[in-house]
């Protein structure tokens, strides 16, 4: 592997980690507040991609408007899932997970019904390659740079929201101790809706941002959700910082293994990494051991 390939692979890994972090952070947010593992999260990502396809490609509206619509629409979808599925299952830890598998099937079939099984490939607004540091062989497409920039901005905004705003404080309080938070007058139901809308919106953003790079299809969520599960297990299931760090770690491992061997070996490596963390350090690299 010469230097140019090495740096190119690093760039690809940075890109992969950016959208993976958006998906995984949303998953962690939902789990932290509601103790529900959302198996349909990959399908929320897929819904975001289709939202962009519809607004930007079919209707011809600006790209950024498409991303905004995707965030809003998928966030609303998340609200519906919270009210209809996860709230009635609040006392049944595996119940919410099983309901989310049902939602996964419905969303996949819904995408097939609305848009057909054929994958859609369409170009984004920033197609020209940008060369970095003035080196000609070292390029990244403007679209990928936009994904990275957007992901950093969204995660930064989320961080500020969680640390500075009243809602953010309340959300973190519920994640730490729901009973104590409820005793302080925080409405668990409203915070759950907020977490679900935020988590789904982030997945929608990731889907919309990558829709012009990877083909958009009804089953595109599958590979993303497996990656996101690996990330949240490695990072620690309740830890937002862990999800971001593990996204970067996993994206680098996966991208380099794919470049050196192939994609299937990379998937096996990721799954074995997750198993190793589950066995050796079930709370993940950044998580705290769960309370009994």
């Amino acid at each position, binding site marked *: 592997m010469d230097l140019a390939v090495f740096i190119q692979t690093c760039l690809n890994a940075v890109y992969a980690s950016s959208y993976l972090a958006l998906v995984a952070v949303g998953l962690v947010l939902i789990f932290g507040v509601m103790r529900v*593992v959302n198996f349909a999260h990959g399908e929320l990502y897929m819904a975001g991609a289709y939202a962009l396809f519809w607004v930007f490609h079919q209707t011809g509206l600006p790209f950024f408007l498409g991303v905004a619509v995707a965030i809003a629409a998928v966030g609303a979808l998340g609200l519906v899932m919270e009210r209809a*599925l996860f709230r*009635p*299952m609040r006392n*049944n*830890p*595996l*119940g919410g*997970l*099983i*309901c989310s*598998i*049902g*939602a*996964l*099937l*419905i969303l*996949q*079939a*819904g995408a*097939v*019904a609305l848009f057909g*099984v054929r994958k859609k490939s369409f170009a984004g607004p920033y197609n020209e390659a940008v060369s970095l540091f003035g080196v000609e062989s070292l390029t990244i497409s403007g679209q990928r740079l936009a994904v990275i920039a957007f992901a950093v901005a969204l995660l930064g905004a989320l961080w500020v929201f969680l640390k500075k705003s009243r809602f953010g404080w309340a959300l973190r309080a519920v994640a730490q101790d729901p009973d104590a938070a409820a005793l302080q007058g925080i409405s668990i139901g409203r915070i759950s809706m907020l977490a679900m809308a935020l988590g789904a919106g982030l997945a929608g953003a990731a889907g919309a941002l990558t829709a012009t790079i990877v083909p958009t299809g009804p089953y595109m969520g599958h590979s993303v959700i*497996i990656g996101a*599960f*690996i990330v949240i*297990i490695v990072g620690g299931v309740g830890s937002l910082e862990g999800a971001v760090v593990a996204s970067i770690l996993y994206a680098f491992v996966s991208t380099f293994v794919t470049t050196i061997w*192939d994609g*299937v*070996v990379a*998937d*096996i490596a990721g*799954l*074995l990494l*997750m*198993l190793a963390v*589950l*066995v050796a350090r*079930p709370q993940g690299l950044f998580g705290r051991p769960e309370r009994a």
Partner: protein
Amino acid sequence: MSGGGAVTYTVWAVLIALPLLAAWLTLDPGLGGARRRIWWAVLAAAGAAALIAAPRVATFSQQELLVFLAINALVVASYRLLALTGEFSLGHVVMMGVGAYATALFSKRLGVPVPVSMLLAAGVTGLVAFILAFPLFRMKGFYFLIGSFAAGEAIRLTWKRFQDPFGGPKGVSRIPGFPDMEVGPFELLFWEPVTYYYLALAVAAASIWVLWRIERSHIGLVFHAVHWQDQLAGAVGVNTWRARATALVVASAFAGLAGALLAHYLTTVNPNRFDVDEMVYVLIWVIVGGTATIWGPIVGLIALTAINEVVLRDAGVDELRPMFYGAVLILAMLFLPEGLETLPRRVAGWLGRGRPAG
């Protein structure tokens, strides 16, 4: 079974009613000992007659469906054994695949006679499950679910990645079929779906009987104890790891046997047949049917397959069928969390006969 017709509907209705009634009898309808035994005998006789007669009134494609039903009945019944200990696995279908690949390779590459190779495959699957028990049973609940998925998917991707000996994405084909036999005046040709159905039915029935005996034995009680009170069970001297591992090994061995049945029927196996989508269907059958009795998952399997094959196939909405399964799963979780198996008891309760549900 594609196509309507009074005969088809009757067969399906009987196939659904039999395990439902069995579940009802198991869940205690308030019958005394002697009357209960009579009912069991009647039900067993009716069940045997219906299962033996079913392929005789079926078309070729319906007979194929009956083969898959018999095999899947074994899959869901074995899945429930693990569920008894409280753990839900996402690797069970891959365990079925381990059995399918093992028997394919034994019989094709090594020339092992097919019946021996099928039993060996069940053993190999149990062994793989035993090895997996060491990492997996450091986890519980959601972590076990994810861990079992990771382990299963890693195994499945290994089949996909390695051409030798697993055949890569195309898998293994031209697996020897089950050898023909002559039993008295009958010539049994196992490439025919009817004959293979009887073989699969016999294997599944014997296996389900063994699973039922395990549940009723001392070890079955230990499984229940580990499910509901694992710390207490551990405190009174139950080795909870060993109980969970036993459930996983036995359940996986029977799943491997089901996979071996599938492999010699299709004479081809490939990695996609054992992917997570298939696993989701097994999970849906088990959850919609209920896990309180061994009949619950079988009710779920037959009822959902019937709706899928009769109603949805006729409606011609192939790619929307997952939506139906998803909706059924959610509705069952919200409104019938104890599964279809409790329906007769509930209905009896509503009618004011028998005891009220609960």
